[in-house]
């Protein structure tokens, strides 16, 4: 097990920068998720850590040892690929034991470790099959087994669940979480799915255009997003974000509609400031159908017309028109609503976010 430290890590292809000098310290046994949209540099970062991609500048330390120029085999890492990358000409047993065979391990040692890994992942009955005879979920498990057998310092996962269907993905997510609890190793997990990142990781690194936008626990990135991008990226359905101008303790939107300036930002903005106002769907709900934030709520009531409703059983997503666009709100204990019907919405402004319109940075102190 080991710490991982990235210092000013940079990747360029010719003149095109992919990763722009990122810094990140990962603690021993920590589960870190790198998350971001396609092309944000998260996979490239992972591949640089693995040694599959040369670094253009900066340094990578694994367990306090600089590994910048070491080949992948000398970094004591293992990696689960998005495509699984199982060796098709080998059986599951051979796939699992391949790294030990290359390392020249004794037969008994090999059998023991393969048996251990297959027991953890429930692969015992599949050991003599070839990858082509396995289902997607089984292949995924073999890929993880192959990683476990190596007993590495760091596990790297490159979007391991994106080829699975929704149900299997949820199941494998739980298995990965259990696995981490069992093997207690440092994990770096790349995904574009924020739900995976939120559910699995101790800390989430949100990347965008080769930069790190925010590093924090799932709770931190959800409750205190550092930038407008993070606010919009984390959370499903996404946060409602709208530009407004501060005017004498009020937020004035483009349509002329107004909301009171949330109390927590009063000292941080001045009249004339251009800001982006953000409110999660959980914090805007038809009055009487939300979660009380417990006494400290700064609830503002406003009557808005409904455009669309999406019933999900235990809750309904209600789209209401505000500032000329749809705002999504989450209605608990739903009652039937008709489009066009005006309803009183409660906006819990104590949970609101404000970002500077120009820089996108949070205005929270």
């Amino acid at each position, binding site marked *: 097990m080991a710490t991982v430290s990235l210092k000013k890590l940079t990747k360029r292809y010719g003149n095109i920068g992919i990763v722009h000098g990122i810094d990140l310290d990962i603690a021993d046994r920590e589960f870190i998720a790198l998350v971001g949209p396609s092309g944000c540099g998260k996979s490239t970062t992972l591949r640089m850590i*693995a*040694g*599959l991609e040369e670094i253009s500048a900066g340094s990578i330390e694994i367990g306090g040892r600089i590994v910048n120029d070491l*080949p*992948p*085999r000398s970094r004591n*890492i*293992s*990696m689960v*690929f998005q*495509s*699984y*990358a*199982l*060796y*098709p*000409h080998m059986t599951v047993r051979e796939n699992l034991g*391949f*790294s030990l065979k*290359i*390392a020249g391990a004794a037969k008994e040692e090999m059998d023991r470790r393969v048996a251990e890994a297959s027991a953890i992942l429930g692969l015992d009955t599949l050991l003599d099959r*070839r*990858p*082509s*005879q*396995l*289902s*997607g979920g089984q*292949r995924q498990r073999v890929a993880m087994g*192959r990683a476990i057998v*190596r007993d590495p310092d760091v596990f790297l996962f490159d979007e391991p669940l994106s*080829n699975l269907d929704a149900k299997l993905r949820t199941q494998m997510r739980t298995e990965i979480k259990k696995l981490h609890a069992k093997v207690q190793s440092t994990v770096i997990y790349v995904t574009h799915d924020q739900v995976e990142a939120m559910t699995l990781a101790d800390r989430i690194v949100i990347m965008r255009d080769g930069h790190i936008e925010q590093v924090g626990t799932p709770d931190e990135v959800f409750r205190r997003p550092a930038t407008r991008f993070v606010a919009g990226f984390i959370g499903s359905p996404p946060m409602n974000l709208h530009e407004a101008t501060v005017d004498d303790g009020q937020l004035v939107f483009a349509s002329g509609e107004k909301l009171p300036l949330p109390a927590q930002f009063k000292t941080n903005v001045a009249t004339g400031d251009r800001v982006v106002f953000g409110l999660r769907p959980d914090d805007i709900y038809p009055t009487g159908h939300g979660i009380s934030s417990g006494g400290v709520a700064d609830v503002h009531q406003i009557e808005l017309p409904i455009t669309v409703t999406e019933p999900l059983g235990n809750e309904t997503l209600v789209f209401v028109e505000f500032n000329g666009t749809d705002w999504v709100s989450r209605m608990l204990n739903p009652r039937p609503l008709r489009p066009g019907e005006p309803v009183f919405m409660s906006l819990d402004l104590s949970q609101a976010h404000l970002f500077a319109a120009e820089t996108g940075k949070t205005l929270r102190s």
Partner: protein
Amino acid sequence: MDENSSARLKRRLLGIVHRIGLFLAMLTICLPGLWIVLSSLRPTVEIMAKPPVWIPQEISFDAYVSMFSGIGKGGIPVIEYFRNSLIISVTSTIIAVAIGMAGGYAFARYRFRGKSSVFLGLMLTRTVPGIALSLPLFFLYVRLGIIDTHFGLILAYVALNVPFTIWLIDGFFRQVPKDLAEAAQIDGCTRWQAFWQVEFPLAGPGIASAAIFAFLTCWNEFALASQLTRSVSAKTLPVGLLDYTAEFTIDWRGMCALAVVMIIPALTLTYIVQKHLVGGLTSGAVKG
């Protein structure tokens, strides 16, 4: 007759027509081979008969016996020709496949300057007919003193086959997912080990087919070999066929017998290797 039974009848009739068509096609393909075998077993009179005699009246192995009877007794140095053919074909195939593997791998896996031009250049060499090269090669080889040698012919055949093996093997390496070699490197392999342990076995069928094609090209090649070899020590089997032509006569039976002797090793090799040519080995390597 209801719709279903007429549809069934139509399907059956189509099936029969299909089979007859396939049989005729196979017959057309196989007939020359069969004719050669038959001609090697019957007297010249029957071979030259007009209209052709389809069913042989008498069968004899005389042509095969006399082929091996030695010079002066109607024989030709078939053992020497066979040995020359084998040495030249096997050596040039091994070299062409080795170069083809290195080149094919490079084209499939690496980015480098002028890649497409080099590849196109290699393919363009295939457009030059071998016979057009024979005279320049003859003069060149005379100057270099490698005319009528195994080495000379091996060199020519390697040059002839390399563009083709590179092209074929490149295609097969492209089919092997890059992830596999990377996974092998993470599993502790060097680049070299990853190639031999993972990529080579998976591209194996492609490499085998490249080898067969290269071997058959060398084994059957006549135009260059007839110009670049003169003596028994270097002549290959196809050139040896000419030994059956005299100033005024051609021993068709003997020639056909030698042709059969030539075909047998090529056919055997193809038969042995064909089961390794089965593709689809990579299925299940990546996603599902």
